[in-house]
């Protein structure tokens, strides 16, 4: 399940959008014990001024991103806008049966987008 993407329209500042990954959807529900899925989220939106300056979600803006946004405001054709990408991620753990019927707990870093930022 995903929050409807902007479909390329320029509206909406860069921010975290909801994306829930269901293990049942990808057919892993027989051997994944927990969780049933997780909120992976994704980033989308415009990184034009002033969104780039304030840094959506409180993440400090990168100077280079501000520079690019300023350049774009002055000469749109010169260089594109900064990109809206994950700025802070967090891990998840998955409990599952492996092919040898062992119960396994694996920990994966950087699986959930907590914050987006312009880069």
């Amino acid at each position, binding site marked *: 399940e995903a929050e409807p993407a902007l479909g390329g329209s320029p509206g909406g500042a860069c921010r975290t959008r909801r994306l*829930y990954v269901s293990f049942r959807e*990808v*057919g*892993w529900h*027989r*051997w994944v*014990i*927990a*969780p*049933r*899925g*997780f*909120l992976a989220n994704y980033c989308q939106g415009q990184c034009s001024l002033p969104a780039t300056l304030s840094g959506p979600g409180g993440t400090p803006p990168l100077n280079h991103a501000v520079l690019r946004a300023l350049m774009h405001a002055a000469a749109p054709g010169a260089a594109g806008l900064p990109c809206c990408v994950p700025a802070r991620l*967090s*891990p*998840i*753990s*998955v*409990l599952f*049966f*492996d*092919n*040898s*019927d*062992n*119960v*396994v*707990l*694996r*920990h*994966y*870093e*950087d699986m*959930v987008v*907590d914050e987006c930022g312009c880069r």
Partner: protein
Amino acid sequence: PAPPGPAAALLQALGLPDVHRGAPKPRPVPPVMWRLFRHRDPQEARVGPRRTPQGTTLRPCHVEELGVAGNIVRHIPDRGAPTRPPEPAWAAGQCPEWTVVFDLSAVEAAERPSRARLELRFAAAETAAGWELSLARAAEGEAGGARPVLLRQAVPTLGTPVRAELLGAAWARNASAPRSLRLALALRPRAPAACARLAEASLLLVTLDPRLCHPLARPRR
């Protein structure tokens, strides 16, 4: 059928190289694994407000509850249980020896074991004034004969599971895990008493897969 395309790539990225064969043999999830999962996964199975407050960071690649480095914890059942005689032999006044077998073929060579805890549950007909557990390596098909004891441990009571640390005893601390681990174990009462029976054996193995660990970002000086 093998999952095509992105699902296979995601399995690969999650370090699950081979296609999972479908429904596993149903078996209860050990409480220790549930506890570790709940302690570790801020999202758990619930979608919604996070259980751990924003900003709490658990040390990556570290299993807090067991106090060791690691990002994979496996609960491995004893493969020798089905072939074990149901009742201990009382012959020659000696308590029986049991062979326990752990299949470690799922552990990849790149994984570094940081903890290997043997957990044994015994059933005793009567209480005794303490027991002594001894572990030795049991080779394939080897019958009897003296083998070097890998570990000897005093066991005050059988009321709780008996735990023994195998890392450094059953295999070298910095070596990768063997493909299979066969152990001969014996439990002898310190004073004459009826022998106990091995009810269940399992291995809790913690490994660190460095390929899934990102070096901690250095704090800005």
